[in-house]
């Protein structure tokens, strides 16, 4: 099954950066009502605005392999980057996930997340893969980031 790439199974069995850590600026809890996936996610930022650096993303994810692997990949791809960069990555992942198999994803931009390309053929699973990302952007917003502004900044580069 091309859905369950080794990379996804590895991330789901050994999620990177898992657990909830201090310090953090904002925490969110998101639920996928369709299958009961839940993720609690914290972000810790240094600095302000689009150029703020994501010092840490920590999380507690309960759910299917796709949602857990997605949280793990998210943490990997985001920690150490600027907020604007991370939103750019999210845009690229989201466009891949919602492409119904058309967009294979660019490994240069989204790293391990290319393994999720197969998910885009299964609409019910797209929600699972997106769950940590919406928890993340929500957490950024709660931490005071102007999401629209921040993604515009990076896209404009």
């Amino acid at each position, binding site marked *: 099954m091309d859905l369950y790439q080794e990379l996804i199974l590895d991330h789901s069995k050994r999620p990177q950066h898992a657990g909830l850590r201090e310090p953090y600026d904002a925490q969110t809890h998101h*639920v996928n009502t369709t299958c009961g996936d839940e993720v609690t996610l914290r972000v810790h930022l240094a600095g302000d605005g689009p150029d703020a650096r994501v010092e840490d993303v920590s999380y507690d994810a309960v759910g299917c392999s796709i949602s857990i692997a997605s949280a793990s990949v998210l943490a990997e791809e985001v920690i150490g980057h600027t907020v604007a960069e991370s939103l750019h990555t999210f845009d690229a992942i989201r466009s891949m996930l919602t492409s119904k198999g058309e967009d294979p994803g660019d490994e240069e931009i989204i790293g391990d997340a290319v393994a999720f390309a197969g998910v885009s053929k*299964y609409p*019910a699973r797209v929600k699972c893969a997106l769950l940590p990302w919406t928890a993340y952007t929500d957490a950024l917003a709660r931490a005071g980031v102007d999401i629209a502004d921040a993604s515009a900044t990076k896209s404009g580069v």
Partner: protein
Amino acid sequence: MPDLDVETLRQDFPILSRTVRDGRPLVYLDSGATSQKPTQVLDAERDFYEQHNAAVHRGAHQLAEEATDAFEGARVTVADFVGARPDEVIFTKSATEAINLVAYAFSNASAGGDLGIPETPATDRFRIGPGDQIVVTQMEHHANLVPWQELARRTGASLRWLDVTDGGELDLGNLDEVVTERTKVLAFAHVSNVVGTINPVRELADKARSVGAITVLDACQSVPHLPVDFDELGVDFMAFSAHKMLGPYGVGVLVGRAELLAAMPPFLGGGSMIETVLMDHSTYAAPPQRFEAGIPNQSQAVGLAAACDYLSQVGMDAVAAHDREITQAVLDGLAARPWIRVLGPLDAEKRTGSVAFVVDGVHPHDVGQVLDDSGVAVRTGHHCAWPLHRALRVPASTRASFGPYTTADEVQAFLDALDRVPSIFGVAV
């Protein structure tokens, strides 16, 4: 504007070729009660059942994905058809349920306790009690009157109404006295299901907005006959039923402004409308799911979307023009018969969809019976608008109502059948 080719269109409605009462061709002039449905709509439902049937939103298998796509696709089609956003479209079982849903949002918001939703300032607009006022009109179908009477009873708010003139139009002379700062909701019909009057929606919506009242438009008789754009109308809620617009039974629509829907507590509780469920309490999903508890009327939603597509293809401008022609022909024919009294505006520009009338000295039920005997199907009685009949000082009426498939020949058959009435009942002509 392309003309409506009635004869070609009628081929999509097999029932219109059947006969009634000993072989007489059916002349169906009861579309105001329910329209006939074209093959395209029946096929869309059947195709859903035979090819894609599964419970939407719930399964992680291919059929469930296909069913969900079809159902959510239907929402987009319906939203486009009436100028709304998909997340402003809620599938109910009928216009009746749609209006009740809004009425219960008021009493449910007014009960105590945690509503299970993120409350917003707009939530307060749904809180109602003694001293507050609910405003309706004398022209309403019972579906847009009884729910408000019951809301008044449940909450202690009081009910007021706009009168109807002898000519069958809304009397706006005392609008400022009736709609006041104490008005929480103003509910009214876009088009009367009896006298066909097209009401001045904008004027009423503007008045309501100026006092902070929520507007609820009963669009049951406008959406099938006129191009309707939710955004342009400027109302807060709008309700209509699929079965009156060439669609199936069992599905209606509530359109609501997104920020109001978000502020409203749920109506029916059950599956798919929840966020989290614990034994002692639950929290609820965002609209539209919040208001669609249980496995929805998915095949019916697909059928309604097919009806919207059908009407779009014919063109709502063409439908409206055709309706005006038919209305004019009926009004002309009735005017030529002085023993008939038409209710409502005599000007075809002011109305759409139906013409109700009385024959003095003959009960409408008897008029309808003679028509039925000639194969002409009309409705008789109070048409679920009893107070309107009282206002017009008639106990009941006979109503001929139209669809895009109504022909000039049918109008003639109707008038010919009517001409049997005076001799049977001894009315002077």
